[in-house]
Every structure is written in C-alpha cells, then in structure tokens.
C-alpha cells in the first residue's frame, strides 16, 4: 500500500479551502486501494460576493456584471462533458460550438444562492471526473479515450443504475446535463433542433395550427373516441 502512482495535479481556484485539498489528497490514497475516486470529499466553497443584476437593470442591453471564475482546465473539461451529454449530430452543432461552456462559467460564477450550490457541485464534480479518470485510465478526463469517458458516465448518468458510492458524482452529472440542455436549447441552433418556431412577430390574426398539426390532433382525438372541434 503506497501512495497513488499518478501525481495529483488539480487546478485549484484560489477560493478553494484547505479542506478541499485534504479531500483531494485522500482520494489518492483511496484510489490506491482500487476504490476509484469515490472517497473524494465535496467541500463547501466560499460564496461569491460580486455584484448581481440589481432590481432595475437595463433590459434591452443586458450585461453580466460578475467576473467569471472557472479555470481554463475546468472549462475544457466542461466542454468535453457537455459534448458527451449532447453530441453534435449532422448539421446540429455540439454544445461547445454554441457557447455552452462559457454559459456554465457564467452560471457557476453568479453571486446567487442556487448558483452557488451548483458551483460547489460542479467545481468539485469536475475535479472528481479527472481524478476518477486518472485512477481508471491514468490520464485526466479530457485525455481519456471516448469509450473510457463513457464508461465513467455510464456509472453516474442513469437514475436507476448509479454505481454504489457514486451518488454525489451522479448528482453533479445531473446538474451538468440540465445546464447543458437548458443552455443549448435556448440558442438559435437549439431552437432549430427542437423545432421552436416562435419569437417571430406576425401580422393579422394568429395563424394557429398548420394543416398538418391540425390533422394530427384530429387523428389523436378521434382515435381516443372523443369529439374533435376545429380551432
């Protein structure tokens, strides 16, 4: 029983507490027992005290008033993970191509309580991901093979199949998934992918359902033995 063979190199935010470091060191020890990185502690981080939006911001020319806090390494891992969560497909770009990692940075750096808890989860979660990858594959997450990356995700991404002891990483993954989807589907590219066609002013009466949409619902309603009333 010796120390872990892979050196522990983690980009540490200057606000990260000593407790966190000790947690990270403990990982190394646990890892050597073949126990993965599940012993990593998820310490609290100091709250961000930057200025928020305020009660009367300029709504037509918005600015994000707080400084961004993720390190370059954390952003890289975020991008890698976001692109695994929702990979690009054909003409649909991957999240990292439409600013999702930058948005997650904006999110975790915001001076509000909900975002603070996400920050704790995400900063620690990104560190866990690297540690876990180093333990399993000898390299940080972004340098692991796609199949090795997925092997880690398979242990934390499915509600009913979370590997015992990995509940916290699963929680982290759930938040990343939720943030990635939200961030992606609020872009124009995301709108095109999901089929949101609004935010487009029109003249005259509201057009209502297309003939195709109307025919479809008529079929559904009548198929259930109910009465269809055209819009």
């Amino acid at each position, binding site marked *: 029983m010796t120390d872990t063979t892979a050196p522990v190199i983690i980009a540490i935010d200057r606000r990260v507490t000593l407790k966190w470091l000790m947690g990270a060191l403990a990982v190394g020890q646990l890892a050597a027992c073949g126990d993965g990185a599940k012993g990593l502690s998820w310490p609290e981080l100091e709250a961000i005290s930057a200025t928020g939006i305020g009660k009367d911001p300029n*709504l037509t020319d918005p600015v994000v008033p707080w400084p961004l806090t993720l390190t370059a390494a954390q952003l890289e891992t975020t991008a890698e993970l976001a692109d695994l969560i*929702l990979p690009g497909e054909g003409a649909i770009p991957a999240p990292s191509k439409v600013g999702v990692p930058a948005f997650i940075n904006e999110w975790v750096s915001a001076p509000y309580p909900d975002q603070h808890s996400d920050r704790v989860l995400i900063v620690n979660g990104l560190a866990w991901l690297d540690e876990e990858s180093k333990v399993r594959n000898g390299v940080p997450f972004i340098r692991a093979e796609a199949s090795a990356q997925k092997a880690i995700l398979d242990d934390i991404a499915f509600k009913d199949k979370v590997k015992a002891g990995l509940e916290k990483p699963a929680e982290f993954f759930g938040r990343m998934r939720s943030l990635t989807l939200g961030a992606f589907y609020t872009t124009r590219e995301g709108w095109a992918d999901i089929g949101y066609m609004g935010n487009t002013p029109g003249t005259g009466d509201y057009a209502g359902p297309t003939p195709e949409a109307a025919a479809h619902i008529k079929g559904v309603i009548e198929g259930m033995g109910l009465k269809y009333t055209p819009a």
Partner: protein
Amino acid sequence: MAAWMLTKAGASVLMLEAGRDYNPDEAPMLNMAMDAPLRGINTPDKEFGFYDATVDGGWKMPGEPYTMAEGSEFMWWRSRMLGGRTNHWARNSFRMGEYDFKPKTRDGLGVDWPFEYKDIAPWYDRTEKLVGVYGSNDGLENHPNSGPGVLQTPPKFRVWETFLKAGGDAINVPVVAARRAVLTKKIDERSPCYWASGCGRGCSIGAAFQTTTSLIPWAKKTGKLTIATGAMVYEVLLDSSGKATGVRYIDKATGTHKEAKGRVVVLAASTGETARILLNSQVAGRSEGLANSSGQVGRNLMDTVGSSVSAYFPQLEGRPRYNEDGAMGLHAYIPFWDYKRIVSGEVDTPRGYHVEIGGSFGDPGMGVGGGLDGYGSSLRADVKRRYGARIGFTQRGEMIPNASSFCSIDTNTKDKFGIPVLKFNFAWADHELKQVKHFQNAMKELIDKLGGTLVSEPADPAKAISKGGEIIHEVGTARMGSDAKDSVTNQFGKTWDVDNLYITDGSVFASKAHKNPTITIMTLAMRSSDSIATRLRTGEL
C-alpha cells in the same frame, strides 16, 4: 383609471407615484433569453426573470420590508414604477358574475357587495371596450356575457387546447376561450398583438393593456395631468372639519417631506399600501387611523387560492411543430362549472375556481432537461419527443374573508424612509383546502380521460395551496359596503368617514371571486371616478 376619467372630465389631477418614471420602450420585446444573464432565469434580484418589466420591486425590496405575525406566511409583490403592476400582469380578465356580488345571500359566508351585477354590467362593458379585451360570450352560469360588440375576437386554440377541449367535452368540464386584456384588432394608437414576446416584459406596441401605453398618456394629453414620480405618500392630511386637504409624501430624490393639496384625495396605491397609508395617518383624537371608524381597515385581506398539477400526455409526443407563441398567454381556460352541485350539497366547498392552462411549444428555457436521464443521442431524442407533451393546470380560486387574515401597522419596524411598515396575518380556512381537493380530483379525471399521467401526485391540500399573497391578487383591506358600521367605503369608493377621500384600488373588494381582480378594479375605478366627476361638477365636492 381615475386620472384618465377625472382629467377627461376637466379636473386637474396630480398623480403621486412612489416609483420611477417608466417608458414602455424599455420593454425587451423579442430579446432572446440567451442574451440575458443566466438565460433570464428568476434570481433574487429579478424574481420573475431578467426580462420581467418590474422595476425596483418583487417579493423583497431593499430597505422596504414588511413583517409577518408568528405562524403567518404572506408574500407581497410590489413594483415601484409608473403604471405599477399593470406593466407586467398576465392580462387575464374575467368578469365577476351575479353570484360573485352576492356571496353571502347565496351561502351565508362573507359579505355581499353594496350593489348587484346588473348595476355594474354597463361599467364592465365600458371598461372592457376602453381597455380592449379578447374573449367569447359563452352564456355560462355566473360567467356573464359582455355587451354586443364589446369583446375582441379571441385567438385560435392551439393543438393542446383543442385536445383538452375534447377531454373536457367528454366529462362536462368546459374549455372555452379565455378573456385577456390583449388587442387582436387595432384601437386608437395601440397595435394589435403580433403574437410574440412575453407580455410580462411589457408591451411597447400597446397590444397588452398597461396604463403606461393608454390611460396615463391619454390623461397627459388633456393637459390636466401632472405626474410626480419618486413621491412616497405616507399620510392623508385633514382639516379641522375632518375633510381631506391633501397628502404628505417623501420626495425620494431629495429626502424631503412635502405636502400636496387637493379638493379630492384618491388613494390607489394597491391594497396593502392603501391600508398602510390610512393606518399611518394621524387623526386628532383617534387611535385607529383614518377612515377606520368601522375598524375594517386592514381587515378582510384576501388573495386567490392557488395550486397546480401537471401532467404528461403520451398522445402529444412528437406532435408536428408550428408556432404556438400566440398571445403568449391563455387562449383557452376552464371556467368554474360545478355551481349546481354546490347548491345541492354534493360538493363540500362553497365557492368556485377556474383553471389556467399551459402546454405550448415555447422557448425551451433552462427547465428543458428536467426529469431526463442518460446522455448522448437518446437524450436528444427524449428531449424532442417530450417537447409540447406536458400540460400544466393552475387553480385560481375564491377565498372567503376570515378573521385571521389582515394587515396592521408593525409599530416596531420602519422602512428606510422612517415610515412604519405593514405586518401581515394570514390563514386559509377549510373552505379553501376543500376547494383545492375538488380541483385536484377534477383535474385527475380530465387527465385520465386524455390518457395522461400526473408528473407527480398532488400534495395534500394544506401543502399544495399557495401562500397568502403569492398569487398577487390581494384585495379587501378597505372594503365597500352598504353600512358604515362594517365597511370602509360606499359603493362608489367614497370613505364613509371622509366625504372627499376615495379609494380606487383592490382594497375596496367586499369578496374575492375566483376571477382575477384587475378588470374589476378598473371597472370600479371608472364607476367611482365618474361619481367623483359628477360631484365635482355639481359643486358637491
């Protein structure tokens, strides 16, 4: 409304507004969530999202607290801007009906209003026509039709609304056109709705009714309206004969205390704030505040009963896409239908509710990933399959006034101006909890008929019910009545105690029907202002 009616009648009006001036062009119409901090989500600073029009307000305002009695929870939404909360209300505008004005006569609870529906019906017509309301006349029990030519044509139902209607028809639950203060045809300089951009952001084209694109500019045009913003009123001034001579306010820009004089004083600072001004006003020889010989000021605080359920409909999965933004609010709703079974005793709750519904293909927003699992291309497929297959049902119900729900002055707490703040007491009664149960059961039946599944089993009514004030329909703290002994004003909003002091906001409500209050606030304000104008003309005031 009062400013418009009175200036139109030739009177000079000074409007004192605690908030700042507001220009509807500030509304971020069509701006993408993506361009707002945090995709525009709710934050402690902007509690209804970045783009919500509220200025310097929300549930909490720095330096302007309110307090709650132990065991009470109450939420008070304020906005400090010209036009107040009309800049961002949802514009749902349902008329109160015959039963709603005579609740005590029907079931012995609460109090009756000092007039009947037929007395106010023509005023509703005038208000709806002036404001511009879309909807249809369905001739339903206690949901009165408007006069001929009053309503504007409602927008078409969207697919999911047609779907709900099919289910409702099968179990005798009506799904009919909603009524909203949104133009579908141009009137005066206001454009019709262009079917995009959430109305809560404010509507700079004037389609969604707000006083800053209508009543206030119209009143200004008469040349008779002076507006002072940043003027925080805290007291009504009386002369030795007991007549109101004006108000005292803090000019926020300079911090100085000022007085404004007038022949008539009209309070319309919102239900909570009007009660606060009355209770904070000093009257020589009396301790209960102003216009409060009945002891009813601050009492009878009511809000709408709120709760919600949400269901997933596999039948709507993957339905063909089209633009469902529409009027960015209700096209259809479920008015209360079960009056007969209340009378027969089969329903164990005395008053009704309506249901507001939502299920459009909208901007997916930050919640789009809720409840999803896994990752990769199957995740993408899940997101797309589920989009537009979930419908939310929101109860909006009647509350009966009760002795445990009121506001008073908290003598221990002052705001940053040194004005004593309001303290709220609030409690729901069994009536409201049973009503929540009725709603939950009725919606389950409807959802079931349409093959849907509840997203989660509704909580026990005591947990499922909204907090007091949360629905932002607070009314009743200076109720009108026919007897000076148990009401604050007469049916024209004139306080019984002070002949030239009027109230034209929701505080004068004698009951809180399930119908959202604002169209009735405006209708009463129009009727009361007409009465003031007549009394000014005849020299009575």
